[in-house]
């Protein structure tokens, strides 16, 4: 009867209601506004019209369709847009909590200039003019003293206004932009690009057999996969889930295997071994569409299920059975490749292995298989970046085998900033990326920031990164600004945008305005490239396609089809060198990389230590939303998971505070004793242990994973390796 076990907790509060008044946070946005008005932060609660505004969510990467219910000029509720096919007309907890972003008492309200030491949190209120003048002056100073490459640009993704930030970087003349992919999925993109020439989308909705390696879709929500995962086609669906943790995805899976962390490639190679040896692969597809199968056969010979069992601790008989079931379900079978693939330092080879396994059962570009993305073409907002003679290459050039020019590779980039080689980087412009929470080894990130002459952060709240900045500029939230169109690729591609639901509160400004104002101050050459309005950008994007704008205005989303198109690439050249699926990668061989995925056993866990696992969940987006009052109420702090048997052996009890120590840092948080994790691992959720006292709800709660994770990364893609860290734990 645990459906109603809340009884106990509520009964405790009977008769003592007034005691809780102080901590009860108001639920109504109008009341928050009144409170802000009382503090003098806004003059009066806004008054305005009633409206239902179509826009797109900005709480995470999924960009789901939203209808903002605006009443009397206040956003009262965010509802899912029923027309939004990509997210199957839903809105998650974070999407619903978006109102808490707008009416957050902890929002950045006006420009701030640091007065105390960095990290001390002493700022003074400044006017926009003064703050912007200072930013431009400092950027020019760094450029003059070093080169224009001496200013780095760290950007978030998905605000749709990040493009203007990237444009500023390019027009200013710095090649050093650093974005999130190498903290996320760059190894995935690399592994699949090397094999198929593109990174496809698994057709989860129509697959009969799905294997997920650590892709925790019930908690790390990706639309539509998280939703479709449970549907299945005609109820024949089988979901196999491998994860050292029993996550909420494990709870939904047909079978969960607590795989030894970092050994997924052994499982994949053994599956390939079985499928090849037993002739279960798709001969026609392999013959007509793949290169290098002949080299794969001897390559996997020694990767038997019995060998894999010793590595990954999944019984050989089960590996054999799963391989056969998988091949039998083909082509409606997918080995799901996930999104965040920043697990181990050999992650690209794991993703290559997964790509090859999918390829040989012939699930490419068919219903229920791996489908290359479609995208709706929209017009491009173009500009002509000025040419500067003295600007060197990217700072991290050559640090990894395949570096994305647009994204950089965070960990090696930071290493080189700290070394000051090949040249110094002394200025840091940050757009809504929370570097201190997201990049592993926080102490090193702090050192990197320490050596900067100047740091400016544009954000909506006082993130840890903003807290350590010299100038902090308040951006209007995603519900207060007009954003350009964004074309989202997928099996069913869509075009979305954002409309302002209310006037931007306080002194916050959309990023396009901030970029234009900075550009104006950087000199004519830069300023010339910023002579456009948001309306002009949108007009360029919809040129010749007025139906897009009409659809966005009347239904909040534009799409051209509601049924997938399969087989568009079949019989055509793929974007690989051979034009075919590259099982054997000539390109890798030439670079001295393993042309077929070679298994590397993870480092042995030292005695008395545990492997630290990190992960996402459905309530917070990375290091950005844990201060949201609605979401924080669901999960006020994170805990350290430790296996029950292991805790008993160590004499550690549930709920006690423990100190977790790695080679790079220590954090103290509550212990959660649970059966839901392997005895050789511990786990903590991301987004806690913040440094910023400007995040009043979450400050002082839980521990920060980035403070513990070491600086290991994948040498092919540059993706950070978040599961290569060992920790010891002791009573705090």
């Amino acid at each position, binding site marked *: 009867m645990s459906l109603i076990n809340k009884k106990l907790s509520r009964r405790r509060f009977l008769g003592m*209601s007034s005691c809780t008044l102080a901590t009860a946070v108001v639920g109504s946005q109008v009341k928050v506004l009144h409170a802000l008005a009382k503090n003098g932060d806004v003059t009066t609660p806004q008054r305005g019209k009633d409206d239902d505004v179509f826009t797109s969510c900005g709480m995470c990467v999924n960009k789901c369709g939203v209808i903002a219910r605006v009443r009397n000029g206040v956003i009262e509720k965010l509802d899912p847009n029923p027309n939004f096919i990509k997210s199957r007309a839903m809105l*998650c*907890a974070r999407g*619903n909590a978006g109102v808490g972003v707008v009416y957050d008492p902890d929002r950045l309200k006006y420009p701030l200039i640091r007065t105390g030491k960095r990290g001390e949190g002493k700022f003074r209120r400044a006017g926009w003019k003064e703050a912007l003048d200072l930013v431009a002056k400092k950027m020019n100073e760094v450029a003059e003293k070093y080169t224009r490459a001496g200013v780095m640009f760290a950007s978030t993704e998905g605000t749709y206004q990040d493009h203007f930030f990237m444009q500023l970087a390019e027009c200013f003349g710095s090649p050093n932009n650093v974005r999130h992919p190498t903290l996320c999925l760059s190894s995935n993109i690399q592994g699949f690009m090397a094999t198929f020439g593109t990174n496809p989308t698994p057709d989860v909705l129509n697959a009969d057999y799905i294997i997920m390696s650590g892709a925790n879709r019930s908690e790390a929500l990706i639309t539509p996969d998280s939703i479709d995962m*449970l549907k299945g086609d005609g109820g024949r669906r089988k979901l196999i889930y491998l994860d050292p943790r029993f996550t*909420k995805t494990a709870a939904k899976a047909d079978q969960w295997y607590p795989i030894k962390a970092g050994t997924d490639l052994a499982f994949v190679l053994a599956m390939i071994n079985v499928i090849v040896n037993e002739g279960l692969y798709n001969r026609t597809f392999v013959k007509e569409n793949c290169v290098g199968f002949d080299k794969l056969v001897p390559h996997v010979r020694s990767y038997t299920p019995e060998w894999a069992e010793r590595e990954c601790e999944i019984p050989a008989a089960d590996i054999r059975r799963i391989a056969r079931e998988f091949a039998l379900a083909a082509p409606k079978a997918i080995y799901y490749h996930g999104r965040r693939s920043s697990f181990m330092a050999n992650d690209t080879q794991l993703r290559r292995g997964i790509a090859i396994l999918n390829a040989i059962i012939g699930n490419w570009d068919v219903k229920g298989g791996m489908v290359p993305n479609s995208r709706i073409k929209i017009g491009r907002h173009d500009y002509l970046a000025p040419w500067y003679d003295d600007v060197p290459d990217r700072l991290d050039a050559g640090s990894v085998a395949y570096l994305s020019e647009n994204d950089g590779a965070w960990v090696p980039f930071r290493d080189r900033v700290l070394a000051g080689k090949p040249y110094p980087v002394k200025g840091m412009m940050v757009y809504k990326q929370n570097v201190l929470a997201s990049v592993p080894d926080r102490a090193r990130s702090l050192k990197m920031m320490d050596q900067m002459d100047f740091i400016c952060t544009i954000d909506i709240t006082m993130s840890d990164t903003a807290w350590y900045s010299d100038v902090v500029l308040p951006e209007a939230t995603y519900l207060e600004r007009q954003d350009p169109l964004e074309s989202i690729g997928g099996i069913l591609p869509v075009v979305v945008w954002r409309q302002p639901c209310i006037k931007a509160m306080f002194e916050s400004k959309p990023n396009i305005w901030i970029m234009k104002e900075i550009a104006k101050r950087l000199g004519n050459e830069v300023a010339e490239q910023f002579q456009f309005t948001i309306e002009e950008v949108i007009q360029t994007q919809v040129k010749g396609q007025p139906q897009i704008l009409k659809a966005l205005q009347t239904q909040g989303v534009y799409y051209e089809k509601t049924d997938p198109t399969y087989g568009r690439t079949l019989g055509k050249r793929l974007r690989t060198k051979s034009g075919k699926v590259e099982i054997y990668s000539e390109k890798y061989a030439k670079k001295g990389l393993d042309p077929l995925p070679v298994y590397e056993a993870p480092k042995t866990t030292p005695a008395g230590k545990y492997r630290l696992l990190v992960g996402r969940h459905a309530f917070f987006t990375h290091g950005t939303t844990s201060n949201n009052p609605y979401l924080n109420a669901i999960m006020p702090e994170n805990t350290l998971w430790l296996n029950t*048997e292991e805790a008993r052996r160590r004499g550690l009890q549930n709920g006690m505070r423990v100190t977790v120590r790695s080679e790079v840092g220590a954090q103290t948080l509550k212990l959660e004793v649970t059966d*839901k994790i392997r005895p050789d691992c511990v786990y903590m959720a991301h987004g806690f242990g913040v440094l910023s006292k400007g995040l009043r709800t979450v400050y002082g709660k839980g521990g920060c994973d980035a403070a513990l994770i070491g600086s290991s990364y994948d040498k092919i893609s540059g993706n950070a390796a978040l599961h290569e860290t060992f920790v010891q734990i002791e009573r705090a």
Partner: protein
Amino acid sequence: MKKDKRYAIVLDTRRCIDCKACTVACKTENNVPLPEDTCRNWVTEEPLRGSYPNLGQSFAPSQCNQCENPPCNSVCPTSATGITEGGIVTVNPDKCIGCKYCMLACPYDARYYNEETGAIDKCTFCIQRLAVGRIPACVETCPTKVRTFGDLNDPCSEVSILLAKNRHRVLKPELGTKPFLFYLI
């Protein structure tokens, strides 16, 4: 002849991933105060079944059962609690004196005391949304569509069909409350 409506929610908890979208949607829709204790709906993590590595777990979303014989109704000294059209059990905050008898009487722990209004509050199937032809916020927002809402007096409604086609149960049937929250088995 047109019959009166009888609203119900049918839940397929096998679809629930415990993402709490329903809880946050409800809080923003109905201005429910933030603490976890104060909520009109909730998702409970059932205890783990088995032990490592053979584990299972279910998630159990719930809310007011909108009983046909609501025990909360009879104990209310000020008639603040009432049953409105469609069988929805409501609280009139102007009449409520916050005595909490109803909280004790409710076998499903579906009521809470709202500090801000000084009255007891509970799920109303989002009566304000029904009035304009929309469905409850928790039903609409759910990623995996655990809940289905509709009129049980209409044999063609989705809820009627679901109940006709599937085995289901109600919570604590032995109490005779006649709940209108149905769980598919």
